[in-house]
């Protein structure tokens, strides 16, 4: 295979992946437009440009992750899991959770949307500065919570604490906190659990979990690698509700 062909293939594979992500959405929408709604789609050209951006953006993003962040991150995760000191391992776990979450595209998008809605409802100021500080606050809360979740998850694997008990305690805490949180924050708080377990966080965190579990005798890599993700979707609910209690009137 020539170099040209190889380069073409490395670009083509993620492009196909991105197409596969978008195709079902487009299909369902086209079917609804043609057979149910019979209404014109406003701003079709802008929308099509946007679709092309999503397609190529996702392609480049995934390819970049595979070239740069995944190989380094996975190798680091394995080497810290195998021999690093406890302090560095836990610090690495926290920063990995924090850093991947700050860069998570779905979270950036949702936080921006939440800020727009809060500004429209006059819960926060309507200036760009107010909106972006609210959105960044949301993202920081989620990122801190994912960092803490990975930190706790790693401790759990090392100490062998029970996963179901910790998860159920976590959900009880979510339920206990919900009545005290402003009702405007609850929706975004509950959603933020699902948002974080996405493109960047899952592969890197799973590598850490599997590396750890396979370096400790008597642990099941599948079970323990999963435990980290479960925490990462639980903690953000708590932290975002607390953030809402602090900033929203």
């Amino acid at each position, binding site marked *: 295979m020539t170099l040209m062909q190889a380069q073409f293939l490395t670009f083509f594979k993620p492009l196909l992946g991105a197409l*596969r*992500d978008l195709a*079902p*959405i487009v299909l*369902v929408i086209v*079917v609804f437009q043609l057979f149910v*709604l019979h*209404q014109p*789609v*406003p701003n079709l050209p802008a*929308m099509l*440009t*946007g*679709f*092309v*951006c*999503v397609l190529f*953006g996702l392609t*480049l*993003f995934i*390819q*970049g*992750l595979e*070239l*740069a*962040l995944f190989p*380094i991150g996975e190798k*680091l995760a394995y*080497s*810290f899991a195998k021999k690093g000191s406890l302090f560095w391992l836990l610090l*690495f776990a926290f920063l990995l959770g*924090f*850093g991947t979450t700050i*860069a998570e595209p*779905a979270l*950036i*998008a*949702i936080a921006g*949307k939440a800020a727009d*809605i*809060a500004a429209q409802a006059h*819960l926060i100021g309507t200036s760009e500065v107010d909106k972006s500080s609210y959105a960044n606050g949301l993202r920081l809360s989620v990122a801190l919570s994912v960092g803490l979740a990975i930190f706790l998850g790693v401790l759990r694997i090392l100490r062998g604490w029970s996963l*179901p008990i910790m998860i*159920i305690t976590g*959900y009880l805490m979510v*339920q206990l906190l919900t009545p005290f949180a402003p009702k*405007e924050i*609850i*929706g*975004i708080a*509950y*959603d933020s659990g*699902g*948002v974080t*377990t*996405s493109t*960047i966080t*899952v592969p890197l965190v799973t590598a850490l979990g599997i590396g750890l579990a396979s370096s400790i005798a008597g642990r099941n890599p*599948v079970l323990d690698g*999963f435990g980290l993700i479960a925490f990462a979707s639980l903690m953000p609910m708590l932290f975002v509700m607390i953030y809402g209690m602090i900033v929203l009137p």
Partner: protein
Amino acid sequence: MSEFLTLLGNTLWRTIWDVMPIIFTLFFFQYVILKQPIAHISQVIKGLCFVILGLALFLVGLKEAIFPLGDTMAKQLTNPAFLYADGIIGNYLWSDYVWVYLFGFSIGFATTFAEPALIAVALKAQHISAGSIQAFGLRVAVALGVATGVAIGCFRIVTGGPLWVFIMVAYIIVIIQTFFASKTIIPLAYDSGGVTTSTVTVPLLAALGLGLASTIPGRSPMIDGFGLIAFASVFPIISVLFYAQISTWLEYRQKGQAHKE
């Protein structure tokens, strides 16, 4: 065009800051703690440029296409002229919005069934269970779970019920099912909640929910608009545990019959 370029430029600048923490973390641990050089550094730098540019393009595209699309679909599906012959909305019933639930169901099913991460998990499950769980069946189960979740989530937006009650009931069902499920399926079932909400689906669901909440009379986007993603993450756990239960039961019954013969 120049407006588009300004948007892209601004987004690009912000994206650099978004990616900084993870780059800093990886480089710090690599060079300062492990004291090892990074192999193929030029390839890594190329990759980082791709990540930043790709993320910026993706975010611009979301703003231009996915958000307006979710919003438009929500508005058109709840448009009184589409819903009622006379085009006037009076005291509506939850059943007036049946197309909304159907759309939510279809989007949930289609995006999940095609999700690559799910295909990998399904094959792993088939392997672990030694064939009693079929990869195809599991994919259908997860997709039906997400679809049902989104549809019920839309129902909640239409009726304005409290999100936490719905989610709490769903988790109680999950906990009860967990007691009866076999140990090997539990991690996979819990995992299926996380893998299904992809980077494109999440913003679309958010826009759909916010669009619905802002057009249906009496709903507020701030209180009712979010929550679809939470539904889409819990319901597949239920459907996978349910599917595993049925598979075990069918297998048990088959064995029982074989025994009798």
